[in-house]
């Protein structure tokens, strides 16, 4: 299935892009991050991230559907 991944901050810099569309068989955000950490060489472990699906915080084990937009959220630092 096709997913849309958006990247912010350190993830954007390490991926070298703000977003990408990806054909994947990853069933969950956890599976997807396992694919992408190899592909882009991310330095943050899954334990250091949160994940959002379709602009809402999500479990790592939530089933993904075709067309979902996924964002991996590194430690925040607003303010």
């Amino acid at each position: 299935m096709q997913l849309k991944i958006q990247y912010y901050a350190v993830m954007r810099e390490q991926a070298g892009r703000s977003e990408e569309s990806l054909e994947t068989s990853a069933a969950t955000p956890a599976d997807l991050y396992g694919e992408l950490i190899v592909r882009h060489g991310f330095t943050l472990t899954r334990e250091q991230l949160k994940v959002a699906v379709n602009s809402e915080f999500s479990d790592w084990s939530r089933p993904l559907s075709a067309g979902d937009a996924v964002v991996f959220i590194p430690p925040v630092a607003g303010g």
Partner: protein
Amino acid sequence: MRFRFTQTAIDTAEARGELLDLGAGGYVSFEGWVRDHNEGQDVIRLEYEAFQELAVKEGERIVAEALRRFPVRHALCIHRVGTLALSDMAVWVGVSSAHRGEAFDACRFIIDEVKHRVPIWKKEHYRSGDSGWVNCERCAAAPHHGHHHEPAVSPVHK
């Protein structure tokens, strides 16, 4: 909208005006300013970046929580994004209330939660030429030091 972003300087006079209320006797505001040092490094500018679709939802939830937890009249938070210079205002929180104690509590609650929960990131640029994304230690996997430590920096050397 009780949480919003701006690309330009935060207009605090306009924002304060949204909180005016004849029943309010106390008003507390917080401003976060870009300071010239962090973790022993000389900072020369900052870049703020946000995942805005989620950030405004989470920010609204925080302000709504504050209004439920504390008996205050009005509350508002505005966060700036983009490139900021030293002493620029990065974030503003304002709360009006019948009594002052609750205004202090609600204002502090909002800025503490915004800093920990809202998907906003800042990259510090140092006099040395290095730069780094500032990370909240509370969010990092290890070491765990509790909730009240200052931000640490993940260096991203150019």
